């Protein structure tokens, strides 16, 4: 079905103006069109009263798709727009902007999700098509009752709160400062630097890292734009993008800071190897972790073993400990440590027990080859257990290349512990109002195009708290987070969507029930008027107060009862249009 206007019908709906509605159906390539019968759907929708036209296109979000809507708006064929496509989280804004660009109020728009709600969850085209029809029918009833809204803009506090003073936090903070904005940095420990400070040398060039990081820490500490809270933590965050108030608790009591955005860079903690008791960590002498071995390499406390075995994926790729994910850096950490050991003690036999060697960064594969050439022996297969035998440590494992159980005797076992979210991350997530992913790391807003954004506007992610990563990837991300967190500072103001509640002062009795349910302190009692007033800047539009209000005095804009009830009816009843 190519682009063409449907037959024009007059509205049978009384008392609802502007029924000139255009419906646009997206195929989403084959994502929708392979399950939902677009043509049939279009014909049924065309028959509905007040529908000026129905069009469809392979990708409505593309330039030609958007242009299709623009042209209809320009020619006055439609006055309200409904797009049935993917999730509104992806493209509601895209199409609102289309309306805006043609001078129409962007809120006279309804986005209906027929991908996640229809084609992706149903395999029967019959049912998927019917459901799509019903969802769109409901959307039409709501769309007719939507009112024009205007966004509000607020001034911005050009200051970034950086949580965490490790490599990611320090790098991001420096970028923010160099861009000419201020930074408030909160670090739980008593010094800056985090885990990276404990790393002696980097991979794949084995360059000493201390100077690199110390230089950045020094530059940061000396910067006049920095306000540093050491030994402190965030206990509260209120407000919205551009105007947050942060509560910080530290050794000198509680403080509040005004900031415009937040970068979360709280890092990781190493997996506790005791949770793999079969490896004997904490029980057997000579079983240590890569964290401890890194320290030994630096302070010279390297023992003189005849044989050393590194065990990969301890606490990674392991459902028995609830960590299905790969920790991304351990393969290279082990390669580096094995090589440094071999360089210092060439006579030591060094083994690495692995599942897959993941040497994917720049120069990593070449480094992995170099390590093998240096005499480090890679054995494919992770051990089932480590035990003591005649004063040595014995690893029992299956060599999956030989397809046969083997035993390996060494004097030192180094467990390559993976990364997990740092302690207290759940509490921090609650304070920030940012969700965690299923592994407990912070969840990014979009896996592809929003890897550093969160679902809360104004809060951004950097480094390992978003997922394990190595030093270059952490730094790259930290630079990026600094760009994201300061982007709207350059404009000096932030535009807030007008989707907030409003109070009908004629009806409000001032019972203050709503005040108690608001999590954002957005409702205040006005003694003069003896009714409630709304702090628009603080309101997140959750609607809890509208539900709690016994007299129906509070309405959530764009989701008013008179907009939502027809929508619900439209979902259930045919013939309302």
């Amino acid at each position, binding site marked *: 079905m190519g682009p063409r206007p449907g037959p024009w019908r007059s509205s049978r709906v009384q008392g609802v103006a502007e029924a000139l509605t255009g419906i646009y159906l997206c195929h989403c*390539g*084959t*994502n929708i*069109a*392979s399950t939902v019968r677009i043509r049939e759907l279009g014909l049924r929708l065309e028959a509905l009263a007040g529908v000026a036209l129905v069009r469809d296109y*392979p*990708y409505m*979000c*593309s*330039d*030609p798709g*958007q242009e299709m809507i623009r042209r209809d708006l320009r020619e006055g064929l439609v006055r309200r727009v409904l797009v049935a496509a993917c999730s509104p989280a*992806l493209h509601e804004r895209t199409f609102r902007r289309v309306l805006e*660009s043609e001078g129409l109020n962007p809120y006279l728009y309804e986005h209906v999700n027929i991908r996640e709600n229809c084609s992706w969850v149903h395999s029967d085209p019959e049912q998927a098509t019917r459901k799509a029809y019903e969802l769109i029918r409901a959307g039409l009833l709501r769309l007719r009752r939507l009112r024009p809204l205007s966004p509000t803009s607020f001034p911005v506090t050009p200051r970034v709160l950086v949580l965490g003073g490790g490599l990611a936090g320090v790098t991001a903070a420096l*970028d923010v400062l*160099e*861009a*000419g904005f201020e930074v408030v940095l909160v670090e739980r420990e008593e010094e800056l630097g985090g885990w990276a400070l404990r790393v002696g040398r*980097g991979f*794949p060039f084995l360059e000493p890292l201390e100077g690199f990081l110390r230089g950045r820490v020094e530059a940061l500490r000396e910067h006049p734009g920095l306000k540093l809270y050491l030994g402190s933590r965030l206990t509260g965050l209120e407000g919205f993008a551009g105007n947050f108030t942060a509560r910080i608790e530290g050794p000198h009591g509680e403080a509040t800071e005004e900031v415009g955005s937040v970068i979360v860079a709280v890092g990781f903690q190493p997996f506790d190897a005791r949770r793999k008791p079969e490896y004997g960590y904490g029980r057997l002498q000579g079983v240590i972790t890569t964290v401890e071995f890194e320290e030994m390499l630096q302070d010279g406390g390297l023992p003189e073993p005849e044989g050393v075995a590194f065990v990969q994926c301890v606490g990674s*790729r392991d459902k028995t400990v609830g960590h*299905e*994910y*790969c920790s*991304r850096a351990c393969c290279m950490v082990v390669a580096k440590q094995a090589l440094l050991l071999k360089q210092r003690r060439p006579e030591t036999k060094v083994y690495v027990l692995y599942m897959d*060697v*993941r040497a*994917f*960064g*720049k*120069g*990593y*594969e070449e480094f992995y*080859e170099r390590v093998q050439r240096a005499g480090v022996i890679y054995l494919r297969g992770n051990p089932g257990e480590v035990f003591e035998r005649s004063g040595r440590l014995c690893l029992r494992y299956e060599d*999956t*290349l*030989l*397809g046969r159980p083997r035993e390996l005797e060494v004097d030192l076992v180094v467990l390559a512990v993976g990364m997990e979210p740092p302690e207290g991350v759940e509490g921090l997530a609650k304070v920030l109002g940012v969700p965690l*992913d299923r592994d407990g*790391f912070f969840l*990014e807003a979009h*896996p*592809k*195009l929003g890897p*550093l954004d969160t679902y809360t506007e104004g809060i951004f992610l950097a480094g390992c708290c978003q997922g394990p990563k190595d030093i*270059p*990837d952490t*730094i*790259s*991300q*930290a*630079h*990026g*987070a*600094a*760009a994201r967190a*300061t*982007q709207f500072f*350059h*404009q000096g103001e932030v535009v807030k969507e007008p989707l907030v509640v409003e109070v009908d002062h004629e009806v409000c009795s001032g019972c203050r029930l709503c005040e108690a349910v608001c999590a954002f302190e957005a409702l205040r009692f006005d003694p003069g008027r003896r009714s409630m007033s709304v702090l628009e800047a603080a309101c997140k539009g959750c609607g809890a107060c509208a539900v709690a209000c016994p007299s129906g005095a509070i309405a959530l804009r764009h989701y008013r009862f008179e907009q939502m009830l027809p929508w619900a009816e439209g979902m259930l009843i045919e013939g309302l249009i």
Partner: protein
Amino acid sequence: MAVPRVLVIGGGIAGMEASLQVASAGYEVFLVERRPWIGGRMAQLDKTFPTLDCSSCIITPRMVSVGSHPLIHLLTLSEVIGVEGSEGDFRVTVRRNPRYVDESKCTGCGQCAEACRLKGRIPSEFDMGLGKRSAIYVAFPQAVPMKYAVDPERCLMLTRGRCGKDGPRCQEACPQGAIDFEQEAEEVQIEVGAIVVATGFDPFPPEGKPEYGYGRSKGVITALELERLLSASGPTAGEVLIDGRTPKRFLFIQCVGSRDHQTGNRYCSRVCCMYVAKQAHLVKERIPDARVTVCYMDVRAFGKGYEAFYERVQRDGVIYRRGLPSEVFERDGQLVVRGEDTLLGRPYEEEVDVVVLAVGLVPSQGAEELAGTLGLEVDEYGFFQEADPNDPVLSPRPGVFLAGCCQGPKDIPDSVAQAFGAAARALAIIKGARGG
């Protein structure tokens, strides 16, 4: 005071995101793209791993944003040929090659392409040669800018000076009179405070591994070709067809042109393990009774949600066989793969309908020359060399930053994060320069 403008070289996902980041902060951007349209490699992909989100749905709105942003000056068909000055004040010479179509007149109606004498006779680069186009064309229906371009290598007017007896049909067909064969290349000078390089990658040319039979057997294709076959907007509208038939036995070969001394590409290309997992899943979804085997050395599923996806694909019934095949050949018209299964420690032969080569990533053509122009260096493979191995964003030349695969292979989230990072560094240089 720095010049408050940024030059971004390359209009793929990294260059686009860097441009949008700078422009959204309120600064002007010159986005220079060598091809007639932006979008780069990501626009060619069907779905993205591990969420299976549709690639077009993610990238086309970004292309629209770039194309319509008032602060982004999009220079397509353009190349940077000279850079003088230093951080904060670069003077850049850009050669703008002719489109032979007046952008201000073209409406993108496509009547020219319909009329072209060579319609349906030129292999489409966008479809990896699997589809055909005209000599005047747009790469794909959602291209930005939606302006047709003449292929100067193929157009009869431009190669022979004449088109049939009665002159070029495209010109006749164009209702706007937009086609202009007299257009010439021109040089423009621009001044910027910072430069972001985002020239991306090319797929490894599979001819470099002759033992896998690419070009000899129709059943041997590259992963990017399969991507186009899987794509709804591809030449087969999303149906996987080889030689007109639906294949049932698929075998993927990992690390083609990666981790390989023979080709000189010793590096890991970082994305192939996951794109193969994704494609294997999509093949199983489209052809449920297909047998799908993946031959690998190590499975590198290291990103967020990647390991879980790799497990899911194995649960789908995709067979992972450790060990790369040594050769692919035809026996009595039947495609045969020979290799050693290193887990079983035994050689095998497998008869298949399709062999998909998981080609690695190599620097995009011309990267080394551009590096010379910019005063930068490339590594032994031709990727741009960063100043500090720990900081992939910084190039050795102050004021010039790196983003995406031009610095080394990486996946989309890592490219985007780096692009934001490059934008951050560029913004730090030009900050406060606006209006001052």
